[in-house]
């Protein structure tokens, strides 16, 4: 059994590579069924995503190059497993959202309830809380007067 789990050259540990729909579907299969061969991945893909074996082989190869899959040779075939967990990938994805919000590149497509980029300090938050409490007290006092 030959392991090929070293990070490939150029694979960044934090930056999330751009993934296509088939690539995401493959990752999903490998999170559920680690150590799967190409044929097994193909069989476990949803019907709508089931591609030819050669397309799937290149997708797995691409994901391996991106550093998201590790593989081990067993007899004639490779067994693939995800090198990042689902939550880690999601964390990186949200990290990507945040960094893109910092440089403003997501502004035209994303409206966030509270701007991730706005790292407001505790004293300001405390002050705003006091302001809100004062407003609530004034509202309640007004309600009692009525």
């Amino acid at each position, binding site marked *: 059994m030959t392991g090929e789990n070293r990070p490939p050259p150029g694979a960044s540990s934090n930056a999330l590579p751009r993934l296509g729909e088939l690539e*995401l579907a493959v990752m999903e299969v490998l999170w559920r069924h680690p150590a799967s061969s190409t044929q097994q991945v193909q069989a476990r893909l949803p019907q709508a995503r089931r591609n030819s074996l050669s397309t799937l082989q290149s997708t797995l190869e691409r994901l391996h190059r991106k550093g998201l899959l590790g593989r081990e040779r067993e007899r004639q075939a490779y067994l693939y497993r995800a090198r990042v967990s689902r939550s880690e990938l999601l964390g990186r994805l949200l990290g990507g959202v945040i960094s893109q919000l910092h440089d403003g590149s997501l502004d035209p*497509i994303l409206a966030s*309830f509270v701007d991730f980029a706005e790292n407001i300090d505790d004293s300001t938050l405390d002050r705003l809380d006091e302001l809100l409490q004062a407003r609530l007290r004034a509202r309640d006092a007004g309600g009692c007067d009525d």
Partner: protein
Amino acid sequence: MTETLLSAALCALLLWWVLALLCAAAYPLLRRRLLALDPAQAGNFLLAYLALPLLGTLGASLLLYGSAGALLLVSDHCHAGQCSDHGPLLRGAGLALLPVMAWYAWRLVNCVRRQWWPGFALARQLRCFGQRRGAAIEIPAAQPAAFTLGWWHPRVYLTSALLQRCTQNEVDCILAHEASHHRRRDNLRQLLANALAAPVPLQLAATQLEDLALLHELAADRDAAHSCTPEAVAGALLRVARLQRAAPPAGSVAFAGTRIERRVRALVEDPPPALPPTWSLAIAALVLCALLAAINPLHRLIETLP
């Protein structure tokens, strides 16, 4: 005919650029008054202000090169014995047009490549990971976050961490806020604003674009305050701000911002007055008069260009 078309195209591009620069430079004079208005109305005014250079350019081009405009608005004059109505011609417009159009095309391609396309890819990835939860999509992530992503069919995304750590009332306020973004197509409006500001260097247009984003947030807060209460929306804002501060995601850096402060203050203070619709009509009439008055001098100016 070809020379007239090339001149019209070049004039339009140059005029758009000049008007966009002038409007961006004049914005600080209007900014304080604009931000004191009702946020939904101020957002509309600001978008109209950003569109003014392009709309003004289209109007001016039609009047400069249309026969009716030349007949009614340009004083009679002759060129080499020819005294018929005419549009102002630019010599060598064809040659000059190429670099100008290339510059516009480069800016557009750059916008798509660096800003819009990654947004599409991101939306696709998030949809793959998310699970429907009523009107929103829940993403199983450890960072508390809520946002609306997309233009034509924007989707509301909430992370599991946010749903676990907020009360139902806070989640309802957040959803009401995001539903307002969805209903008003705020992301599409922001995209349009970015496209309209394309001729201006980003540093010059940044204040207008940031203010528009702030006005969208303030308007969505006001909308949410109708279904919750202003205090409940302000409370939800502070709650999420604290949660995001307590669990900063990997790669986040400290950033001094006052947007939350402004939004909370806007919610706990009395709402600003909305201008009556007659004001919008009066402003539009004023702009139209200015445009009509500018046609003759503009025609003469273009004809004096080398």
